[in-house]
Every structure is written in structure tokens, then in C-alpha cells.
């Protein structure tokens, strides 16, 4: 058996004149969490839908858990689960009914289906909401149910498409915990996300995807190293002092590193590490610049894109729309 859970080469898919996926190669180790990072419309969802056998590729090939996604689609479906970007549960049914339905479809008997549903509801903290219709769930509850629905039978490979988009921080952390627990249990996870910090937190490997192509690949550490830095955000009490602060930051971190924010009192600067960031802030204070607040952040997806492509991550919503119409 191959040690790779996913091997894709040259996957292509067009919708009308738009090439949504334009030659994607992927190699995902079994048992790992692999992040596919990119802005809206980069081709993440289309790639995942092809790998999950929901879309037939126009070109290229892929094997999932050793099975060809076109020739052996049924075997692929027998080993994977998909939690799509739109909630893939029935909103009119209760949480418990959704899980029982899926268990029945996977071959459980009625009694087994009920007990498996209850087990999952408890595991995902949904016991109290079990008999409510899903349309009355909060975003976080819906997401958890959606993931639970993918785990009625523990899949060898789980596709998670933007599992935390639109969730509050607490719900996001719960989803992250679930992904970590899945990895411990040996399930391979392919995680599509727009957030670098999410990929950084969870993934063993990351592919950055842009305009239907993988433009960079590596561990989160390598990727961040290739971007070179995190960023320092500084907000001043007095916007009048911004030119002076900008001059000081440029002197300390380099001319190219600093750019003013849309906020007239704020500045952002690329900054190699936390120590240097703290020093620079101290310099500003010593020079009499009054600071309202400052933060050191990891590079964002935008900054990764800037570094990799020399342009900001652009949203191409058009492709998503065509995909839904297709």
C-alpha cells in the first residue's frame, strides 16, 4: 500500500472559459493533516470536490488511498468523508435524525444507528440540541454536527473545506480540537483554509494554491520562513506622529518593510521576530512617539501571497459562482 493518502498530478477543471483548477499536483502522506491554503476562488473547493469524486476532472489524474478517483470512484467514496463549505446536513431534520440517516445509509441497523448517533452527539457536545431542527443551530453547532456527520464511520481520509470560516473564536477552537483528535486517531485530513494561522496550527504540510495552481509547498515553518517575517502593527495615539513613526520604523526595519494602514493612526511593518519587534517598539517610545497599542502577528495569507506572487491575494468570486451553477 502506498504511504500516500492522496497523489494528484496535473488535475484540471474548467467551468466554461474559466480554468478553476489548472494543473494541481499534491502528495499527502497517510496520517497527516495537510493544509491547502488560498484565497476564495483559488480552486481549493474544486480540487477537493474532484478528489472526493463529486466532480470529474477534465485532465490529470489522482489516486485517493490507492484508488483512482475516476475509475474507482465507488471505492474512494467507501473510504473518505467530506465536510463541505456549505453545511452538508439537512436543515429541516434534527441533529439526531441527520446522524441516524447517515448511519442507516452506511449500513447500520436501526438500533446501531441510534446508538452511534447518540455517541457522536455526546462527543461533539450536541446532546442537548439533539432533538432541535438544524436550522435553529448556531454556526458553531452546525459545523460540529457537520463534522460529526462525516465521522459516523471513521473515515481513512476526511476532506474539510474551510471548517472555521464564519465561526466565532470559541467555536473555531473546538473545531481545531476535533481536527487534532482526528489526527491522533490516525485519520488523514485534507484541510482547505484561507487562514495561514489555521494551517500553521493544524497542518503538517501546506500547499499554497493560487489561480488553480500550487505555487508553494512545504511545512508551515518553511512557508513562514519563505515569507521571511511576521508583522508588527502599531497604532498611535496621535495620527500627527505617523510620519515620524514611519521614519523610525523604516530606519530600524528597512524602507520596504513599512507601509501605512488605511487607519490614519496605524502602521504595519514586516518584522523578523518577536525580539526585534519589542526592541523597535521600545525605540519608538524612547523617541517620544505615543503608542495606543501594538501587536506582533504571524504573516497573514495576504503577506504570504505578497511574498510568493508579488501581489495581494485576490478574491475571484466568479469561479465559485460558476461552480455552483455547474
Amino acid at each position: 500500500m502506498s504511504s500516500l493518502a492522496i497523489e494528484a498530478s496535473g488535475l484540471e477543471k474548467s467551468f466554461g472559459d474559466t480554468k478553476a483548477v489548472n494543473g494541481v499536483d499534491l502528495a499527502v502522506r497517510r496520517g497527516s493533516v495537510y493544509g491547502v491554503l488560498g484565497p476564495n476562488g483559488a480552486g481549493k473547493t474544486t480540487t477537493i470536490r474532484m478528489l472526493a469524486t463529486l466532480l470529474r476532472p477534465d485532465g490529470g489524474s489522482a489516486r485517493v488511498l490507492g484508488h483512482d478517483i475516476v475509475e474507482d470512484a465507488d471505492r474512494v467514496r467507501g473510504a473518505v468523508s467530506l465536510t463541505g463549505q456549505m453545511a452538508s446536513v439537512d436543515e429541516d431534520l434534527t441533529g439526531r435524525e441527520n446522524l441516524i440517516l447517515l448511519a442507516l445509509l452506511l449500513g447500520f441497523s436501526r438500533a446501531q444507528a441510534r446508538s452511534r448517533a447518540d455517541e457522536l452527539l455526546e462527543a461533539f457536545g450536541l446532546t442537548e440540541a439533539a432533538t432541535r431542527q438544524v436550522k435553529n443551530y448556531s454556526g458553531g453547532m452546525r459545523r460540529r454536527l457537520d463534522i460529526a456527520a462525516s465521522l459516523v464511520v471513521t473515515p481513512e481520509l476526511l476532506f474539510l473545506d474551510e471548517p472555521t470560516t464564519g465561526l466565532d473564536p470559541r467555536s473555531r477552537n473546538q473545531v481545531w480540537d476535533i481536527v487534532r483528535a482526528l489526527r491522533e486517531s490516525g485519520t488523514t485530513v485534507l484541510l482547505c483554509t484561507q487562514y495561514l494561522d489555521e494551517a500553521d496550527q493544524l497542518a503538517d504540510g501546506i500547499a499554497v494554491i493560487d489561480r488553480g495552481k500550487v505555487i508553494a509547498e512545504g511545512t508551515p515553518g518553511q512557508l513562514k520562513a519563505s515569507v521571511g517575517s511576521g508583522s508588527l502593527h502599531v497604532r498611535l495615539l496621535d495620527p500627527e506622529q505617523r510620519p515620524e513613526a514611519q521614519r523610525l520604523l523604516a530606519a530600524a526595519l528597512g524602507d520596504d518593510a513599512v507601509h501605512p494602514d488605511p487607519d490614519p493612526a496605524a502602521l504595519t511593518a514586516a518584522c523578523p521576530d518577536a525580539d526585534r519587534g519589542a526592541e523597535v517598539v521600545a525605540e519608538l517610545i524612547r523617541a517620544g512617539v505615543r503608542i495606543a497599542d501594538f501587536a506582533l502577528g504571524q504573516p497573514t495569507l495576504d503577506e504570504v501571497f505578497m511574498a510568493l506572487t508579488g501581489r495581494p491575494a485576490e478574491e475571484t468570486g466568479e469561479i465559485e459562482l460558476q461552480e455552483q451553477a455547474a
Partner: protein
Amino acid sequence: MTTTQNSHPQRQPSLEEAMHKALRSAPRPRRATPLQAALAFGWRGMLKIKHVPEQLLDVTITPVMFVLMFTYLFGGAIAGSTKEYLQYILPGMLVMSVLFTTVYSGVSINTDLTKGVVDRFRSLPVWQPAPLVGALLGDTVRYLIAGTVIMTVGYILGYRAEAGLGGVLAALALVVVFSFGLSWVFTTMGLLMRSPNAVMNAGFMGIFPLTFLSNVFVDPDTLPSALEAFVNVNPISILANASRGFMAGDVASSDVLIALGTAAVLTAVFAPLTTRMYRRA
């Protein structure tokens, strides 16, 4: 639950444990058989009726209105007396009300497609036509409800079937089987069109004239000859004839066979088409 609700730090590990347990204890059972899968989807249809009972309003109120309007508005003019007309029109009304309900099968498939849940169904290792067959099995319950409502209203208004309850049940069964076949046409439309409303409009644009250009409302002898010829070969006329025949106790077996044959042909053509389009990648 043994832990208390308000002690957050204690609750977390127990949730985590439950999650690990849930992830461990998930042996994959043997694949669901096609029948099991279709029945599970049928059960989903039942649950929808339970949770969204409003959907039955369309199915029940419209046909009741039709029966009342036609019987009391046109009955005297067409058949001399409302009582006599009711005797003629009710078996046809049964056909019409159930056939109208089939349009909703296409509407609900289309509604499903606008939600993410179809992706999950399509990514399951089940017999591929199961979601559609199951949905239509669930819909047959709606057809039965629509048919029962019409027959009950008819009975209250004074309709009496010469062949008794057995005749009524036989007619109902035939109409439901025919509708199962016809509903594949609307599921195909449901997959072709862009919105549930479009399916509804196009569906009724087809079924409405077909129903009126049948012998459901008037005896075709009174029609211009070209129209009469069409009405006589209209499958809806034949189904209405069979349904009248069952209830009157003098059914022509050719009518029944043609109705069943039409259902079989519709299923043979449109079921594979629908399934392919549902799967279409």
C-alpha cells in the same frame, strides 16, 4: 451526564474523552443494500413531512378547491346536475390532484440541490439512484394523502363508488403507480432548471394543459374532432378512464395496461437520465 453544567474545566476533558471514544468505536458495517439505502431516503421524506407539514397544504387545499368549484360552478351546466357531475368528475379529480403533486417531487429535488446536503449524499458509498428512488418513495406517501383527501371530500359531497371501497383503493393504487413514473419527468426537470420556482412554473405549464385536454372534466364526445382525437390518446384520459372504471366496477383491462405501460416507459427513460444527471460530475 455526571459532570455539572457550570464547571467548565471539568467538562472539557470529558468531552475530549467522549470524542476519542467516538472516534475509536466506529467499525464500518457492511454496505447498505440498495433497498436499505432507498428506504433510509424514504424515511427522510417522512421526516420532512413531519417537520414541514406546511408542504401538505398545496397538495390538499388546491384539489379540494377544484372539486368544489367544478362541481358547484360548472356541474349543473355540464352534466345537468351537480350530483351527476360529481359522479363523473371525482375519479378524474383523483387523477388530477395526485398528478399535480408529482410536480413537487421535482421542486424538492431542486431545493435539495441548492443546499450542501446533496454533496454529502453523493459522496456516500451507496447505490447511486437511492437518493432519488427514496425521495420518490417518500413522495408516494404525499400522493396517498392527496388521493385520500380528494376521496374523503368526494364522499362527504355525496359521491358513491359503485364498486365500493375496493374499487376506490384499486384506482388509488393505479394512480399512485402512474404518478411514481411521471414524477421521474419532474425530477429530471428539477435537475435541469435553476430554481425551485422555475421547476414549479414549468411543471405546471406542462401538466395543467395536459390535464385539461383530457376527459377529466368533460366527455370528449362534445369536442371538435381533432381535439377529441388528442384527448382520447392522452395518457391522462386513459388513466382517468381506468380510475373511473375501477370505481364503477367496469374497468377495461386495456386502460389499466396502457396506464401501467406508460408509467414503466417514463421510469425506464427518465430514471436513468435523472440518476446520471444527479451524479454528473
